């Protein structure tokens, strides 16, 4: 991670925040978006989140999980079960992290 890359990356992410949060608010004249773009707005956040996390969960250095002795599997299963039971994001994070830590520290997975 070269320093300039991280620095420019973070500065750009800050600009992205300003752009997204002010998208329709900041311009002086109202912006009209085509209907398909508005519809795409519904799926893009889900697609982006899933595209980022799915490889983080099922891949290790670019290959699919080869062993069941991987704390991530059980952390994700428990977090998933918690979410659909209680629907709370906070509990989802906490339950999954508890399982992750127990397996990593307890069993060295």
């Amino acid at each position: 991670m070269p320093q300039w890359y991280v620095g420019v990356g973070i500065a750009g992410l800050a600009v992205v925040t300003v752009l997204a949060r002010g998208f329709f608010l900041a311009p002086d004249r109202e912006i009209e978006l085509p209907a398909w773009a508005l519809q795409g707005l519904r799926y893009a956040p889900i697609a982006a989140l899933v595209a980022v996390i799915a490889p983080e969960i099922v891949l290790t250095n670019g290959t699919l999980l080869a062993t069941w002795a991987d704390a991530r599997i059980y952390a994700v299963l428990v977090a998933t079960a918690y979410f659909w039971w209680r629907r709370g994001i906070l509990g989802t994070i906490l339950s999954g992290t508890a399982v992750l830590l127990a397996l990593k520290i307890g069993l060295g997975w």
Partner: protein
Amino acid sequence: MVAPSLGIAAWGLVTGVAMVKSGMSVAAALAMTLLVYAGSAQLAALPLVVAGAPLWVLWATAFCVNLRFVIYSAHWRKYFGTLPRWQRIVLGYFAVDLSYVYFARRFPEPRPAPEQLPYFCGGALWNWVSWQGASLVGIVLADRIPTQWGLGFAGVLALLGVTYSLLSDRKSWIAAAVAACAAVAAFGLPLKLNIVAGIAAGVAVGLLLDRKFPDAAPERV
């Protein structure tokens, strides 16, 4: 505002820890939380930064994760559209999810009123303090936690929860499944382009499904 700000604080703590445990320096993590101020986008950016993805992929991914704010901004315009431009930009920057939820509940009528600005500023300040305070604690703590504990993965679990909360109907499930498969299958692509492939595939399938099976009562954004 106390109960939800506990949630914000916990989320900020996880983000602070995950930033440092992904390998980012403490200085970079501090800059990120203070400047970017967008939890999901920060967490989604981490694997990309670590992999050295091209900047446009990093920024485009963050923008997609932030698209909900684009939708909120159309609503904010109805309340604050008459303010000077620089105020609108500053106000937009501090308008996070909770501000939107509480504001829409308190002022259901979409027209300007004098008490709206102080209400907004109070909530936004409270949210900022809860988030940044917890995030700073997370950054400092993470520096002392062993890396083998794998706590960076808590960031992925947080995003998992956010994703589940966005899955509303069958079409969004299918779009998500397609995006996941595409991002994993295309992992061999250079420059982290598998993320772009996943987003494109998910959105394309979503739009196709919308065309084939339109909602009974179409939503207006």
